[in-house]
């Protein structure tokens, strides 16, 4: 733990020009600056919603802060300005910290056309999601989105954040029905960082809220990441994992042992 955080401090200025304490307004720029190929070129990640709490030090601009007059800037501005809940845009494992928030993703309001398109592309034609009179007839206020659509949004949040990493597990529990016109915001937080057999993993808690702030989905993911730019990352041009000819078998399905408990035991911190 301590060696990692020490390494992180050392590595941060060189390997990560993008600091975590930048105000959110600069996020769109950052997505381009990083030049990561999987970063969305057409549309940057939507800016965080107002509902997203600003980092404690959102007002402090570390990079722009002028050095104190008449004093040589011997040390970089204090690390204490680093927000506690920083937005983890790094994609190297060694730069991540437990408790880091993933950049939230607010999706446009779901409409019926999106529900139909999702049904068509996923091949699930459950009438409750497509047939308004039928949904009425069986007692629902109307048709509603499949939970899998909200899970796909969470998957988008995860893969946009992961970039060169790789999702090994993704699970979700659908808590509340998602209706047409609902506007979902997906969020994530690093719950655990661990190494196993030489591979680096981040366990991430995920959740999605509707426009009323109600939890509609709770999920978890296990991601495999490069440890650092020096260790398998950089421009080697391939996912370590994808290139292994004998990819390790999927670990035993944990959920088989506890079929009723894929969701995290503690609810995500209420925002």
């Amino acid at each position, binding site marked *: 733990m301590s060696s990692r955080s020490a390494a992180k401090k050392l590595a941060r200025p060189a390997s990560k020009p993008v600091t975590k304490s930048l105000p959110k307004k600069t996020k769109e720029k950052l997505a381009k600056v990083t030049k990561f*190929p*999987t970063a*969305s*070129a*057409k*549309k940057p990640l939507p800016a965080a919603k107002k509902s997203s709490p600003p980092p404690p030090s959102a007002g402090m601009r570390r990079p722009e802060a002028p050095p104190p007059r008449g004093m040589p800037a011997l040390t970089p501005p204090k690390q204490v300005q680093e927000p506690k809940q920083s937005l983890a845009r790094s994609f190297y494992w060694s730069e991540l910290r437990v408790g880091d928030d993933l950049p939230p993703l607010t*999706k*446009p309001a779901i409409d019926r056309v*999106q529900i139909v*398109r*999702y049904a*068509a*592309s*996923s*091949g699930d034609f*459950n009438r*409750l999601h497509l047939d308004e009179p039928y949904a009425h007839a*069986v*007692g*629902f*206020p109307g048709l509603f989105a*499949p*939970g*899998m*659509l909200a*899970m*796909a*949004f969470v*998957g*988008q949040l*995860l*893969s*946009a954040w992961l970039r*060169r990493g*790789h*999702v*090994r*597990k*993704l*699970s*979700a*529990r*659908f*808590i*509340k*029905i998602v209706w047409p016109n609902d506007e979902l915001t997906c969020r994530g937080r690093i719950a655990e960082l661990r190494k196993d057999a030489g591979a680096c993993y981040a366990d991430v808690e995920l959740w999605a809220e509707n426009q009323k702030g109600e939890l509609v989905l709770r999920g978890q993911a296990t991601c495999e990441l490069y440890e650092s730019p020096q260790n398998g990352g950089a421009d080697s*041009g391939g*996912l370590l994992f*994808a*290139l292994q000819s004998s*990819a*390790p*078998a*999927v*670990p035993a*399905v944990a*959920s088989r042992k506890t*079929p*009723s408990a*894929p969701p995290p035991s503690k609810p995500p911190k209420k925002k």
Partner: protein
Amino acid sequence: MVDRSATGREAKPATNEVEKGAIRRFAEAIGETNPIYFEEAAARAAGYRSVVAPPTFPTSLRAGSDLREGLMLSPGKHLLQAEQSFEYARPIVAGDKLTVRSKIAGIESRQTPSGPTDVVIIEDEGRDESGELVYRSRQLWVVRMAPKHAPGDLHE
């Protein structure tokens, strides 16, 4: 009550060829914009063999039949998906030919504040042409009456 004897029932395996167009349509439907789901060049630059599938894409891969259809629910009851989990042994990319198997792994009763409810657990797996496991999927479906009290709540 769902017929417990359906537990263990398996669908006929079916081979699904993962097509670029299918990935693109899925990605468009969920509002994805990441070029690795749309453009071969972007996917290759990111280290993939071809256009890559979004994490929840395996939901569109199917075995030879839909096991939910044989459950014979009583009138007025529906299956609603309440949980989903995926495990991936490697990324799924366009051109993969995955043989998908599906089985009813369990039918259980769960206590909820509104009374006992049946849940159906369906497990899928996809293997590539060499027989290597590529993904596993586990879905939990709740048997649900039409809502009377709390139409928005999937659980409890």
